[in-house]
């Protein structure tokens, strides 16, 4: 059972990563810096539980706030550019963060061993969950409480004026500006919110994996972050979850039995999905069909 629960935890964490990119994508921006915010959340929360021996909840929230703070700082200069230039700028930020942690060494003695980030050696001993007797069920529940909270918050926001503003900026910046929307404020807010969500994901990741190093936070992870909302569709937060299940659950884990063929089939299925559902696996049409089916089910 621990295997399935581990997979469910991973899906939850990657959903948070995808949602962090989703918020920004609503404003029409594409960021490859989400892996950087994820890394900041992972290392910060890890340092707080391992070195400062804080409980998981405050560590996680502080880690997310630190990630959000950096997202806020990065938001101002980065969002002065857009499109491919923003992609390049955020890749640079992600690499900066990765290389910072690659060089970070902060070791303190605990119970006869040294703990803390150890540059290339990575950051081991982030064992808060297992060392405190948390079962796999409890860890999974803990992860999913945050996933659900974030999804509900984003769902609610999407249906509020804030969501309309984000989508307005994403649809047509000039038109949005002409009706008095402050583009910089909207984009920086979205970036900060994305950083916060990625920070939560990173903090949870570090504590479920028990180890992080710079190789965890490469541009590949950033690519996954933007792939989830693109593949799932931007019509709803559910799309990102569907895409994470498709990629992590089906393509990565489900196809493991294919051995050497797995990566080829992985690529082919991604291409097939993008061609067959160009607006996302969970696009507006799918949502309508499901809604209709649900209402028919209720009637019949």
């Amino acid at each position, binding site marked *: *059972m621990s295997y399935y629960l581990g997979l469910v935890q991973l899906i939850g964490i990657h959903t948070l990563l995808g949602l962090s990119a989703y918020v920004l994508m609503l404003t029409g921006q594409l960021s490859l810096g989400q892996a950087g915010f994820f890394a900041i959340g992972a290392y910060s929360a890890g340092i707080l539980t391992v070195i400062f021996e804080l409980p998981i909840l405050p560590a996680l929230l502080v880690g997310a706030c630190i990630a959000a703070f950096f997202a806020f700082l990065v938001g101002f200069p980065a969002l002065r550019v857009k499109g491919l230039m923003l992609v390049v700028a955020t890749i640079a930020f992600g690499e900066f963060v990765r290389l910072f942690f690659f060089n970070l060494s902060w070791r303190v003695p605990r119970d006869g061993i040294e703990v803390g980030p150890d540059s290339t050696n990575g950051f081991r001993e982030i064992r808060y969950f297992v060392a405190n007797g948390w079962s796999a069920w409890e860890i999974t529940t803990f992860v999913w409480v945050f996933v659900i909270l974030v999804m509900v918050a984003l769902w609610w926001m999407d249906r509020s004026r804030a969501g309309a503003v984000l989508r307005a900026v994403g649809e047509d910046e000039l038109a949005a500006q002409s009706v008095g929307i402050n583009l910089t404020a909207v984009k920086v807010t979205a970036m900060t919110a994305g950083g916060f969500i990625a920070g939560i994901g990173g903090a949870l990741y570090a504590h479920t994996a*028990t180890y992080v190093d710079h190789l965890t936070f490469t541009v590949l992870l950033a690519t996954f972050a933007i792939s989830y909302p693109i593949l799932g569709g931007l019509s709803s937060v559910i799309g990102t979850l569907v895409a994470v299940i498709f990629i992590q659950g089906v393509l990565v884990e*489900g196809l*493991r*039995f294919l051995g*050497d063929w797995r990566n080829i089939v992985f690529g082919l299925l991604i291409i097939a999905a993008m061609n067959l559902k160009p607006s996302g696996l969970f696009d507006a049409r799918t949502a309508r069909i499901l809604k209709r089916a649900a209402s028919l089910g209720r009637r019949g």
Partner: protein
Amino acid sequence: MSKTSISIITLAGVAAATLIAFGQPAFAASERTVKIAGWGAKSGPLRSFGVNSEAVLTAAVKSINDAGGVKLGDGTMVPMEFTYYDSACNADQAISVARKVESQTDALIGIGPTCSGAAAAMYGIFQKTVDDASDTGLQFPILTDTAIRPGLAKKSQWTFRNVPNEITMYDELFSWLRTQYPDAKTIYGGTETDQAHSKLTFAIVIVPLAKKHGFEWVGGGIEGVTGKVRDGYENVLEVSKSSNWLMADTNFSVQARAFKKSGADMMIVSSHPFTTCGMLKEMKRQRINPKVLVGLTSSSSAETLKGCADAAEGMYIPTGFAPITDAAAAVASAAQANGGFADLHSAAAWENAHIIKQVVESMGVMAKPDTLQADRRKVRDGLEALVSVNGLMGEIGRVQDEGESVKPFVFVQAEGGSWEVVHDPR
């Protein structure tokens, strides 16, 4: 065919694949067998590690079964079986496979993963101390064959490794080189800094131990490097000292120029075969011919010879595997027959399969569905109790409290497209 039909067919295909993968019965009803699980990088740039490991493991299991199988606690002889998984040199995937094998299969033990980074991450999810009820980590024994980064196995009492001890190997190598090249005074070198094994072995082990045996870094040495392992290792990697690169690099002209400018008698290329070859080819192009060339243990493999035999000519490397005994030669042939190569990493998979057989037989493992947890515990306890075992190159000692090994080794040199044993300190 309409788009909707294609969508339905594709989704049905994906659903079927998922059902096949996840719908397999957790425990196949079968006759009693000793099951083991292997995993490592079978995709990505380090794919050869997993391919080689699987090839050697296939040969090892066949040899055990050809000799009658494994004797269980009640005297029954049963075959050994193994399944090999791709964990792609990736921490998440190594963790996922470990969880899958522990909870979804009746494997008694795991062999893997191949990459040190994946191993460092994966070991963390295991119970740290046996019988600690407050620790909910996995309780499943691991005997790693390839991941060589120093000091990993002591993270958990469930994790063991059968990998060479690089500190002893390089200590002996430089001692021997001192006698072979009494005129060599200075050294210079570089490493791939984003690979922990290459970088740490270079900075913590190679440079200090070279100093210990009288080889001084060009330009008057490096501050803090005293000849003792770890001393001053941060300074070794300063840009003003060594000339380094990254694993994804494809151009080494700047680094090679620094090597040339140093004029050192001995040059160190501490990296995996992929960048070792890039660096060596560039050194050859720039006509750099040091008196002595030393490489990283991981480069004493067929990949280096396949990639750059000419450029590697003359390079010395200490290795825990060479086909110099009948058993080692047989394993090398068997691995090739299975589409892989036996080298210092993969050859351990052979030894591991035979160690597992020895432990299963000595601990009275029953290999029944209702004894699975007890059997896994017996295997762990058996591994911990081992003092020494017979390996392909001689006796392998165990460092019980750290879960590590002390393996015999030889020094090889690249000569005419093959690794020739030039010194055998066993």
